[in-house]
């Protein structure tokens, strides 16, 4: 087991693409850290740098406090599960599992013992004599995990390991990975673009965008207190609604979505003292879909655009009255309990819980 530290890590590719900029991140011993972000945000690069597959352009990487920048991948004692599993196609499952052990020069009986132990743990004992092409996607995924775990690495890296599986299998293996990681207590860095995976798996989540770390913390903390509009909109499905707000200097109310809703400034200023600095400036407001409710105040008569019924709940896409008609960016979404009750084109009264209102500067940083 080990700690991992990224200290001012930067990565610029030879073609000039900046994949990472000044990344500072530390992963505790035995922790499951999930790196999440959209495509091209630098999350896989961060993993590859730690694995030693690519050199960093600046900064320091440490495993257990020891600088590893110059260490070859084979000397870092890490294991990695690739998105396409990268099983050796010409070897049987047994030989795939054995390969890292042979490289460690372990004696034969010890190799056999570890293969038995790992294959039993992952439920692949009966697949040992098969070749990768004879396995299903889920079985390949397990073998890839087995090959990574069999050598008992200090750090376990996973690069979107579930992205090639169907939804049902993904959910099952996700919980298996979580259980396995907790049981073995191996420091794990898990890369995904799927925020559901991030929320359910991570002890902590690090959200990246354009090569920069946006926020790092426990999943619930990131969900409840996003540091900026990007984190707010990225986490959650659907993500946070972000819309314009205005704390007019001459009025005592915060105007939301072009005046669709107005709430008194006083209580807000007590909750968010820094808001005082932004009075008179354009702001951004954030509300999670579940913050809306027909019974809350302040309420406004909103225009329903469409309704997605999910059986036990519905996602109502609507335009607040103060919004410009037809402007796609001003369409908001509410998550309401129960089956569909509204029709597109209908107006309904919709309010929200002011306690769940997030405020951001015009640049998108949270106001606390």
């Amino acid at each position, binding site marked *: 087991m080990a700690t991992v530290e990224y200290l001012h890590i930067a990565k610029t590719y030879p073609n000039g693409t900046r994949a990472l900029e000044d990344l500072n991140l530390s992963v505790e011993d035995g922790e499951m850290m999930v790196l999440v972000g959209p495509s091209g945000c630098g999350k896989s690069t961060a993993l590859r740098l730690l694995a030693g597959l690519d050199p960093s352009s600046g900064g320091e990487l440490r495993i257990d406090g020891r600088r590893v920048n110059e260490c070859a991948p084979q000397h870092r004692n890490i294991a990695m599960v690739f998105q396409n599993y990268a099983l050796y196609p010409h070897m049987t499952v047994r030989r795939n599992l054995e390969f890292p052990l042979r*490289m460690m020069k372990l004696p034969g009986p010890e190799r056999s013992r570890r293969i038995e132990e790992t294959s039993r743990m992952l439920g692949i004992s009966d697949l040992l004599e098969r070749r990768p092409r004879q396995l299903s996607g889920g079985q390949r995924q397990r073998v890839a995990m087995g090959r990574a775990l069999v050598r008992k690495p200090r750090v376990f890296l996973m690069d979107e390991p579930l992205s090639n599986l169907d939804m049902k299998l993904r959910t099952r293996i996700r919980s298996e990975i979580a259980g396995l990681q907790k049981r073995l207590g191996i420091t794990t860095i898990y890369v995904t673009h799927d925020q559901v995976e991030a929320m359910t798996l991570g002890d902590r989540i690090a959200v990246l965008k354009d090569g920069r770390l946006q926020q790092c913390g426990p999943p619930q903390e990131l969900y409840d207190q996003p540091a900026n509009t990007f984190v707010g909109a990225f986490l959650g499905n659907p993500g946070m609604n972000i819309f314009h707000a205005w704390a007019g200097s001459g009025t005592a109310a915060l105007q939301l979505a072009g005046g669709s809703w107005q709430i008194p400034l006083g209580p807000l200023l007590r909750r968010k003292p820094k808001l005082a600095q932004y009075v008179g400036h354009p702001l951004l407001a954030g509300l999670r879909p579940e913050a809306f409710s027909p019974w809350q105040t302040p309420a406004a008569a909103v225009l329903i655009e469409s309704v997605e019924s999910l059986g036990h709940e519905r996602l109502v896409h609507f335009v607040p009255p103060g919004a410009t008609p037809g402007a796609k960016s001003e369409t908001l979404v509410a998550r309401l309990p129960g089956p569909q009750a509204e029709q597109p084109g209908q107006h309904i009264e919709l309010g929200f819980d002011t306690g769940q209102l997030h405020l951001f500067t015009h640049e998108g940083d949270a106001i606390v």
Partner: protein
Amino acid sequence: MKRLLTPLTYLCLLLCGLLFISPVGFLLIGSLKPDDLVLVESGGWRALWPTSASLENYRDVFTRVDFTRYLLNSLFINGMILGTGLLVNSIAGYSFARLPWRGRGLLFNLVLAVMIIPLEAIAVPLFYIVSLLGWRDTYLVQILPFIANAFSIYLFYTYFIGLPRELEEAARIDGAGVVRTFIDIIVPNAKPVFASVAILTFLTQWGAFLWPLLVTSSEAVRPLPLAIATFHGLPPLRWGDLFAFGVMMVLPILSVFLLFQRLFVRGVAATGIKG
């Protein structure tokens, strides 16, 4: 209409097949005929009919020249070119495809440029160099210049560049160095390209004539193509013997092709060589 087309297609294919195989058939059947019948019957369908077949011509070849010596020379020279060539060119191809080193692109372009230079163009300076080194009339001079081959390097390069990079990365993380990764992971997954290069090298080198003619003078190191030319000029001229010599010269290359044929087809498809 469709019912008529299928037999017609097969008939066309059959005729094309016969057309392609007829020279080989003529060679094989001619080698079994008495010498005086070979040319007499060559004008019609009898060319492909074994009239009074016997292995007499084959026996003649062995009594008139030291065929075994030439065959062993050819096998040794080609075996060495093939073995060392596969090793050197695959390593070079892998290095160009995967290993990061300064000047890789420039050198690779130079290698590609070398592909268009025919042996005839460099034969004289090459001859001068090997003469200076005192290598004339040896096996070495027939092997060394043909080990590194630009086309083989290019074939290996195109195959290796298409292999998933994650395989090598997984091996490196699993603890294998570059050499171990190459031997344990890359080579076993590149059998088709090895087969293609083996067959193409063997095909080219087995028939090599100009270079051995320039650099060898003693029969002890000369390969089969030179021997058949000498045999042709050896009186009396017997076509049946010549045909038998030809058959025995073609057999090794045919067996190599048949041995690797399945892999070769896969390799041709994978490396994108056009026939």
